[in-house]
């Protein structure tokens, strides 16, 4: 029985496999890794064995060659159990692996994709800086060409997978940098490897509200010499590849909100039918019914939107911006609201970790910020919509 959410039998089998993996292997560790703010590298490598790390990468480089819908399914299922772990997965498989597979050349793909699809290498993407997030083109990391090489200087902030432990950095990064003495729009993309001289872990950030099972780090580039074979695409033209990858990033981030919302609806629905007050199940009270029914309807609306956009998303094209921004704008807030209602329905029990929804609530908030703030989506969408006089 295929449908919008599982368009083929392969997608169905994939969803079942990831769900069963998440329930058996992610669930038992989620609370601990959240509490201790650690990244579970061992479990991450298991995703490699299952072919999930290269879900959209071509098979000739060790990937699984599946489509955007498959990526959405994986994120929904992982996030329903452990959004923090899922964020680390997203930064690796979407921001690094898919980004390189789409924008890199054959030699670069040969060099880095097999290792990152298997889980030997942990990858990430560095766009944001301490002084530039939404205003990404205002970045100050610069690349200066020097013979056949480039010299990179700057600081990157908020980098998911930037560290794999308190003092060890991730293995391989796609780093955006401005070309020295050229216009602000002339950005280049580089493969920067752990171990390159001058490339270091500034700090692993502590005290995050949520997504604590993923690491967030500051990375420092000090006269890092990067050979031209590590330049992805041509010099100064990376804005296009950035936009192309942001589309799948936002759709999969929206899929994470779906996972969070689905789990929260399940939890509040089950709880409300069992919990008794004033002699009846609390799901007989109108105010509780409103929490449950509105949450379900909003979840299904978001889910339909995300899978509809994913089914039309060509990973190698760009220009899908209204809807890739739109799904994240809608689903991030939807997921946060649904998690909030779940806590409300559970009362005091919702406020403690045993019942999971407090963790999902903390994790849900990030999705209104990371991968573009909601205000950024509103800005982008309105600019693009202004060019349309009719919506088909």
């Amino acid at each position, binding site marked *: 029985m295929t449908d919008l959410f599982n368009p083929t039998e392969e997608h169905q*089998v994939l969803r079942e496999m990831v769900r069963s993996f998440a329930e058996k292997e992610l669930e038992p560790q989620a609370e601990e890794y959240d509490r201790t703010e650690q990244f579970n590298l061992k479990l991450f490598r298991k995703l490699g064995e299952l*072919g*999930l790390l290269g879900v959209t990468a071509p098979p000739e480089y060790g990937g699984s060659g599946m489509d955007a819908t498959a990526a959405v399914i994986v994120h929904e299922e992982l996030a329903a159990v452990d959004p923090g772990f899922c964020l680390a997965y997203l930064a690796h498989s979407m921001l690094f692996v898919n980004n390189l597979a789409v924008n890199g050349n054959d030699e670069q793909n040969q060099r880095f994709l097999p290792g990152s699809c298997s889980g030997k290498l942990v990858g990430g993407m560095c766009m944001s800086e301490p002084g530039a997030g939404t205003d990404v083109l205002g970045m100050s990391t610069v690349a200066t060409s020097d013979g056949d090489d480039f010299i990179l200087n700057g600081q990157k902030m908020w980098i998911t997978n930037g560290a794999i432990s308190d003092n060890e950095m991730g293995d391989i990064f796609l780093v955006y940098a401005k070309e020295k003495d050229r216009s602000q729009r002339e950005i280049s993309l580089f493969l920067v490897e752990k171990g390159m001289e001058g490339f270091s872990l500034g700090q692993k950030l502590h005290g995050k509200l949520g997504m604590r099972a993923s690491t967030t780090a500051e990375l420092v580039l000090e006269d890092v010499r990067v050979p031209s074979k590590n330049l992805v695409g041509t010099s100064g033209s990376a804005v296009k590849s950035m936009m192309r990858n942001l589309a799948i990033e936002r759709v999969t981030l929206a899929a994470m909100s779906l996972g969070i919302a689905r789990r929260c609806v399940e939890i509040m629905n089950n709880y409300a039918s069992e919990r008794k007050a004033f002699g009846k199940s609390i799901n007989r009270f109108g105010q509780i019914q409103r929490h449950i029914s509105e949450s379900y309807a909003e979840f299904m609306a978001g889910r339909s939107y995300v899978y509809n956009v994913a089914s039309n998303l060509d990973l190698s094209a760009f220009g899908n911006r209204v809807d890739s921004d739109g799904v994240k704008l809608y689903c991030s807030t939807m997921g946060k609201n649904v998690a909030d209602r779940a806590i409300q329905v559970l009362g005091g029990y919702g406020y403690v970790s045993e019942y999971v929804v407090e963790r999902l609530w903390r994790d849900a908030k990030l999705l209104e910020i990371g991968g573009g703030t909601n205000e950024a989506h509103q800005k982008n969408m309105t600019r693009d919509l202004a060019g349309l006089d009719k919506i088909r």
Partner: protein
Amino acid sequence: MKILTTVKRVTDPDMKVRIQPDQSGIVTEGVEYKMNSFDEYGVEEAITLKEAHGGEVVVVSIGPGAATKELRTAMAMGADRAILVETDADLDSDAVARVLAEVVGREEPDVIIMGKQAVDSDRSQTPQILGSYLNWPQATFAYKVEIEDGWAVVGREVDGGTATKRIKLPGIISADLRLNEPRYASLPGIMKAKRKPLETLTPDDLGVDIAPKVKVLNYEAPEERGAGEMVDDVDDLINRLKDEARVI
């Protein structure tokens, strides 16, 4: 070695089962279906044996057209090809065994590995009935299987402990929980499974009359379990087991 293994499409065991108002069956609306978990152990064992001894794994399901999903899952785990005997009827164990006996007649496997029971009806009958139709030896509830020189040495879970049984092949083995740890269907496996052959037959094609021998009169939900009670000490427990529960 040719290994035949079976999978049943069952309702998700983690969902609450609800009975239809007229008691004719369970409510299937909105219910998820999965591969029977005991069959996962069977499929895993079949693939492990193939990896050790070479040969082919053929996976068979009897059920609705949608059971191709469970067959694809088995092929994504590593089975080589699949046969669906398509029927929407709810077969009793005897009918399933009669259909399987015909499939076995066509395929002539060296060994059949099945789940010890299906988690929907929990009957645990089909492997045994199939053994009698084929007149093959059987070793049920396996926790360990070794195959050498045309014999299978099977460690079995039995009441109060374990037992070892040696059966001459061809024979039937039914899988219990401790047998192995079923692998996940990996993504490359899922993509490969797309291209593996899946043959669809009907009971008619096999010349099997699937008319039931067992008639189900009605379905009833078990009585709801009351809340537990804390007792003060062991003496209290013993007294209450004696006087109230009357079980000792």
